[in-house]
């Protein structure tokens, strides 16, 4: 009887600890997730543009290491952001939101960035937009 109570209390304790862990689970980020693929910015964009559904299946929530040239940078209340050129004729871009404030990025710079793929937004006027989040600058 006593033994049963001890086991039960351990099981309960374990459940509580697991509950606390789940509640406080840190958000996934490109700093900790395994890299799924290394790809050039224009190639990633073309893939999403030509085949949005298949590409979403392949890349959604995956950590992508992307290389490209910086078109614009922004620091706002929601953090650091930058946009990579794709060279596409519809003005499509890769938009990146950084995990932490990342200030040493210049327009025109060649960069390598890891980020979690959030998907693709097509727009007739603005051109498409592949979004990467929780990103970190590699070089």
């Amino acid at each position: 009887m006593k033994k049963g109570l001890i086991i039960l209390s351990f099981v309960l304790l374990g459940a509580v600890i697991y509950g606390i862990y789940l509640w406080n689970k840190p958000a996934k980020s490109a700093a900790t997730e395994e890299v799924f693929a290394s790809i050039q910015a224009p190639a990633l964009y073309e893939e999403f543009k030509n085949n949005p559904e298949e590409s979403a299946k392949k890349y959604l929530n995956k950590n992508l290491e992307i290389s490209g040239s910086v078109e614009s940078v922004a620091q706002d209340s929601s953090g650091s952001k930058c946009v990579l050129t794709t060279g596409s004729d519809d003005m499509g871009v890769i938009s990146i939101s950084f995990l932490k404030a990342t200030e040493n990025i210049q327009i025109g710079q060649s960069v390598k960035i890891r980020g979690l793929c959030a998907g693709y937004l097509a727009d007739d006027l603005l051109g498409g937009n592949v979004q990467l989040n929780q990103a970190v600058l590699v070089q």
Partner: protein
Amino acid sequence: MKNLLFLSLFFMTTSIFAQKYATRTGFLGFFSKTNMEDIKANNNNVSYVIDWATGDIQVSALQTNFKFEKALMEEHYNENYVESSKFPKATFKGKIQNVGSVNIKKDGVYKTKITGNLDIHGVSKSYTTEATFKVSGGKVIAETKFNVKCSDHNIKIEANLKNNISESMEVTAKAELTEFKK
């Protein structure tokens, strides 16, 4: 000579009507309040396009771009509620009523209604909302708030979570748009 006149007239009118404003970094957020819990989600990567000549407005957001306070909430939101892998986007397509009352060439605050269809979780529903357009120095800050019922978009909240998640979400949209030049 006549052709030239016609041509220049044509270019003049196109420049007058090239009145598209846009941004890729607009805000869209929602808020659920119950006695048990407040839940807030923000998305700062929302694209907005307004055509002032026709009054057309289009807003698109990726569901996976909504950020919650807790990672677990974000997971549940994407997997159980809006099913982001099946329905990755939330979109709004509508018209600004009485669009002529908004003078984008003159600084000021303009209020008018927007009517359109909001598509979430594969279900489209018509909404009308009061919006504010603040014009200042060539930029337009568009802002509105309205309520969305989860059941209207076939989003089911489990009975045991009804006390934690409100059936009605307060949606806030805000974006600073600038003239779009290709």
